[in-house]
């Protein structure tokens, strides 16, 4: 829950007055709230916690972390387990 995953903002949109974005985590794209990073723009990297972008990250650090998380299976664990549990329900 607290791990936080770096991803790249691909698109920014508004949902009921909240700033949202599509964020790409090495191929898995999620809807993420960007309200706490009002200056972030498309192409920037951020760390995401429970669907919220909480801090900016430079591209190199983000890519290195993503590659590491993917190699040890943490990406799926953080991003897919919930969806899988829902499907199983």
């Amino acid at each position, binding site marked *: 829950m607290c791990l*936080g995953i770096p991803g790249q903002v691909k698109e920014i949109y508004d949902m009921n007055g909240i700033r949202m974005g599509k964020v790409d985590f090495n191929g898995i794209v999620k809807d993420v709230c960007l309200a706490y990073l009002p200056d972030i723009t498309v192409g920037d990297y951020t760390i995401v916690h*429970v669907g919220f972008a909480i801090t900016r*990250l430079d591209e190199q650090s983000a890519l290195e972390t993503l590659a590491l998380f993917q190699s040890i299976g943490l990406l799926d664990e953080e991003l897919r387990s919930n969806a899988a549990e829902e499907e199983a329900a």
Partner: protein
Amino acid sequence: MKYLDEYRDPDLAQRLFAEIRRITTRPWAIMEVCGGQTHSIIRNGIDQLLPEAIELIHGPGCPVCVTPLEIIDKALAIASRPNVIFCSFGDMLRVPGSAKDLFRVKSEGGDVRVVYSPLDAVRLAQQHPDREVVFFGIGFETTAPANAMAVLQAHRLGLRNFSMLVSHVLVPPAISAIMESPTNRVQGFLAAGHVCSVMGTWQYRPLVERYHVPIVVTGFEPLDVLEGIRRVVLQLEAGRAELDNAYERAVRPEGNVAAQQVLSEVFEVTDRAWRGIGVIPQSGWRLRNAYRAYDAEARFAVGDIQTRESPICRSGEVLQGMLKPNQCPAFGKECTPRTPLGATMVSSEGACAAYYQYGRFIKAEEVGVAR
């Protein structure tokens, strides 16, 4: 040397281990506060590769583990109600309450749903105006901004069928409680990086000064953890106690100001019970009066709850760094991730679950792990 070739940069890891060995002249006990760091330490065998003089004490920073039993029981009671859609982060579903867990409630017909973001629960409330949607709002300062925004959003949308069971906890008061405990052995802290991404680092300066204890803000990857340890040991060996930031790429001194503004709009500080530890003064957040309409505890009148912990679970001692998970007699026997007796065996951030997942059934010194 065990595990080392699995590091992203084995050469750098090797150099950091060597450097820590070089500067360590005396025994030191260092606490990693965050469960995510505990997970990284056990997964990568960092504790076994460090010099023997350095002991890592696993801290209480696993939100799933410290959410009080009474709140879990309240969650179970609310989730069992026929008109409720109960939404939670996935790792809360197996946390044992006094009699059962949320998975059991679900199998008994309760509408329990795992969501990725608390905003998903707000959306469910919009989609089901005839149902009561309740979100289980737990966690440290990292998840709190998300939960605060969900409450604000429900308020903006005028949703009357959304509420939150709030049990937020805060890191700095926990560090105070650890330092003031008569049994404390901790001499330096790795502070939780992402908590500081939100809250900044300034909250830790008074702790450094009051307790003369080094606090180093640290990330979650193996190399981050090693660098955090190296900086704590450097201070300890020199007799210094300073606030240091080893995770600058994600942590600014002021933190995320926009998030802090929303947090103080929605939440106020309160005393909070920590599972296995007890009440820590001013260690949590609850909804402010202006948002009491969204307080699930008030809405569902679940005040009268008799709790009962497992009589053999010793997770309280694990959470306070007094016992390593594999020193508990029930570890890996009566208590496994499939049949957890305590919350520390549930979440991947819990120390017991991390020890189980990575096969730490026997204490390192008993098998003579090479360092």
